[in-house]
């Protein structure tokens, strides 16, 4: 069953619309049900060649030698692509927005850092011929010690995974091995708390498993350009990455995609486009590079696993007074997007609750496994799992109904969040009330009456909760539903040297820890290693 609760927040909406809100049929549905939607591989191209790569059988090893002579002579082989053939053989995905340092080769140079890392490519007249030729390549390795556990990787003497980040952690702000969150005084909060609970949570890696695997086709076009049919989730992201690695002007590449057989984050990493373009350039022929299902499952980047420690302090009356998080994101051998997920995670702490004291240290850790990447809910899914399991345990610990406990602590409009921005447009309480009602989950009257809006939190006093620290609500600044294009954000850009007070001038959080550098010199970006 599906229902739209138009009665809630009706006063904040203009529902006088014609096309918006209509259950209009999808523009692509007829194509889907007739099998005529055109995915990247639905182009018939004469003379197509096929690229497959040789993958490392070891999680960590030095390549001593590669003998591809027999492969080069194998039937159907048109070209062998070696690391030295890649024009710019070091990249990091977020280099386009100056996030992090180049750390990952397209083809491994001297060291392989995860099982499945590409070492060499073969272009042949069929996938079969390419795979048979790969079987003739002889590589000799010196195996190196490998590390697979995020906390092991941080211990002194752990094998160093990533040459760019030899300490096995991504570098934040040019000086830290983690991203910090400091708000209030978390230790004072624990001292005050009736119950303190610390727990460990371990996420699993997740494979995106789209039914269409990653792939692309590069076709030499007129005037030295290449048409690239691709399954990418991010067309220009992939185009610019491929142009950088191939050292060609971006306008030599004409990317066509847009109809993709599922992605879920697994088609951002541009795993096939750079090499397939290189293959087309080196052979002058159209080339396809398509992941097998086995490659997609094991060597296409998964969602990384996170290990999260949460320590909470809660009062018997239901107030959470402190939350401390220490988390390790398993990035695998290279950065890809995990560095970024860490920041997203930090911003999400302590969850959609108003907690006066919050503290977090979150690490992006390198291990000898398939590099991790974005996936549906990236950086947040893991934290939500940890925090919401924790919320359940806290409710049990103080004998409170778990939904009422959440409603009590839920953030309201005007509350100050731990990343020091005022909460607005909140709706957690209303969601909880509606879901409880639908599920016949009984809530006490006072919790049914609470609201996310300014003033709606007054009921928290009725529940015996001290809200004195919350900011005095300013007059609600309500903008029209159909908003102007440019929106005034709470914080001006470019950044000021000291953080300006947030709108509504809420008081600063209580007792910042001694030695707080709030207002200390700031870096031009989170990345610290911003490049030009």
């Amino acid at each position, binding site marked *: *069953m*599906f*229902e739209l*609760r*138009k009665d*809630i*927040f009706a006063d904040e*909406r203009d529902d006088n*619309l014609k096309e*918006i*809100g*209509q259950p209009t*049929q*999808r*523009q*692509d549905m007829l194509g889907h049900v007739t099998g005529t939607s055109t995915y990247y591989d639905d182009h018939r191209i004469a003379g197509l060649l096929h690229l497959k790569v040789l993958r490392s059988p070891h*999680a960590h090893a030095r390549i001593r030698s590669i003998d591809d002579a027999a492969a080069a002579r194998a039937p159907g082989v048109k070209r062998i692509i070696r690391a030295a053939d890649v024009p710019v053989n070091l990249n990091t995905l977020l280099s386009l927005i100056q996030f992090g340092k180049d750390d990952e080769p397209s083809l491994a140079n001297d060291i392989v850092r995860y099982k499945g890392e590409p070492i060499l490519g073969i272009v042949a007249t069929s996938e079969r011929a390419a795979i048979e030729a790969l079987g003739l390549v002889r590589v000799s390795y010196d195996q190196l010690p490998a590390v*697979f556990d995020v906390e092991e990787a941080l211990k002194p003497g752990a094998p160093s995974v990533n040459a760019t980040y030899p300490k096995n952690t991504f570098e934040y*702000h040019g000086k830290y091995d983690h991203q*910090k*969150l400091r708000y209030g005084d978390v230790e004072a909060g624990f001292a005050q708390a009736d119950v303190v609970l610390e727990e460990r949570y*371990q996420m*699993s890696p997740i494979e995106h*498993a789209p039914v269409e695997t990653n792939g692309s086709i590069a076709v030499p076009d007129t005037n030295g350009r290449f048409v690239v049919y691709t399954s990418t*989730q991010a067309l220009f*992201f992939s185009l610019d990455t491929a142009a950088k690695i191939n050292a060609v002007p971006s306008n030599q590449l004409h*990317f*066509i995609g*847009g109809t*993709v057989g*599922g992605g879920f*984050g697994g088609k951002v990493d541009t795993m096939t486009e750079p090499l397939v373009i290189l293959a087309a350039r080196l052979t002058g022929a159209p080339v396809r590079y398509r992941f097998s299902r*086995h490659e997609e*499952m*094991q060597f296409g980047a998964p969602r990384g696993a996170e290990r999260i420690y949460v320590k909470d302090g809660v009062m018997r009356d239901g107030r959470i007074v402190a939350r401390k998080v220490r988390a390790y994101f398993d990035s695998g051998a290279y950065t890809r997007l995990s560095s970024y997920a860490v920041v997203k995670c930090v911003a999400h702490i302590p969850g*959609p609750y108003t907690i006066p004291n919050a503290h*977090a240290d979150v690490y992006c850790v390198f291990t000898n496994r398939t590099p991790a990447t974005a996936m*549906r809910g990236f950086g*947040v*899914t893991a934290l*939500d*799992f940890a925090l*919401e*399991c924790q919320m*359940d345990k806290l409710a049990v610990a103080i004998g409170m109904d778990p939904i009422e406990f*959440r409603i009590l602590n839920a953030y309201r409009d005007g509350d100050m969040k731990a990343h020091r*921005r005022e909460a607005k447009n*909140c*709706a*957690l309480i*209303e*969601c*909880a009330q509606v*879901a409880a009602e*639908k*599920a016949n989950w009984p809530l006490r009257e006072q919790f049914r009456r609470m609201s996310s809006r300014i003033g709606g939190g007054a009921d928290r006093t009725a529940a015996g909760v001290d809200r004195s620290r919350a900011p005095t609500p300013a007059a609600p600044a309500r903008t029209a539903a*159909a908003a102007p294009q440019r*929106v005034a954000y709470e*914080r001006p*850009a470019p950044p000021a040297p000291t953080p300006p007070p947030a709108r509504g001038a809420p008081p600063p959080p209580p007792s910042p820890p001694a030695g707080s550098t709030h207002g200390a010199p700031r870096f031009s970006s989170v990345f610290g290693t911003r490049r030009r």
Partner: protein
Amino acid sequence: MAKHRGRGVATINYPIGMNLGGDPSQALVHSNPTGKFTVTLSSIDLGQGMKSVTRQICAETLGVPVEDVFVDTADSDTGPHCMGSFASRGTHRVGNAVMMAAREARAVMMEAAAEELEVDPADLETDGRGAIHVKGAPHRSIAVRDVAIAAQFRQGRTIAGRGIFLVPLSDVDAETGEMTPATCYAHACFIVEVEVDDETGDVAVLKMTSAYELGRALNPKLVEQQLVGGSWMGMSHALYETPEPYYPDTREGPRDFNEYLMPGPGDICPHDVAVLERPASDGPFGAKGLGEMCANPVLPAVANAIFNAVGVRVNELPITPEKVLRALKARGGAVPARAR
């Protein structure tokens, strides 16, 4: 042997768009000479409905029927820049860019219509059915088709528009984590009922009840698709999926859809969904995004329901029956909590 039922809950919010901003998207809108519009994007439709939702946004903004708009996606020669389809940014970022482009195109269309009708453009309105008329005087009307013909062949106007939406990149404070991570948030509460077999550890999901707040449901059918499909994926993450079953050990990784476990059509359950709309001030018609957060609350809700059913906590995903059974043995058997 016994099977025990339990309910669990989770409440979550989710930031819309790339964390810290810095993620622009552009759109182009233009009319052909007979008043049919094309939206040109480089954005990707990977099933979430990008083509469909931007089509409705464009039609609403232009004031024309949705059939008169077609969206072309993902050609880097024709579509202007978009960061990509991820981070729940499509509806919000691309939707805003399309709105801006459609507004610009609409302004030209209204000027061209005004010239034909010999009135002030400010006195005109669209009827959403393919015509433009003088406010309060529907008989003084001109078809969008005739406006486009006039603009192209007589007036020399381009009924077209450009749009961009950008949340400027925000900094993060190294010491405190102070930042502007997102401009709006979607919300959800998820309740799930499970049944746990205390002899095998098997967990069956029996019923899902949810409320999601998304700013605005631009197309309720597309919303339903995401929420129903996303909750399946959340259940799958909670109980089944892993490419590394013995993590952090990397052995025995699945190679196919037989070994990579996901709930099949025989493992699903009814899902009762409610959608709330509290418009975001910077969303297109108030819309936020739901593509990612739809799955998130299911994971902890399932874990909490298992505790409610048999009294054990499994803090490691996926919550396989093996882990449940080990926890039950460590606990000395099922200890159901108070029924919910």
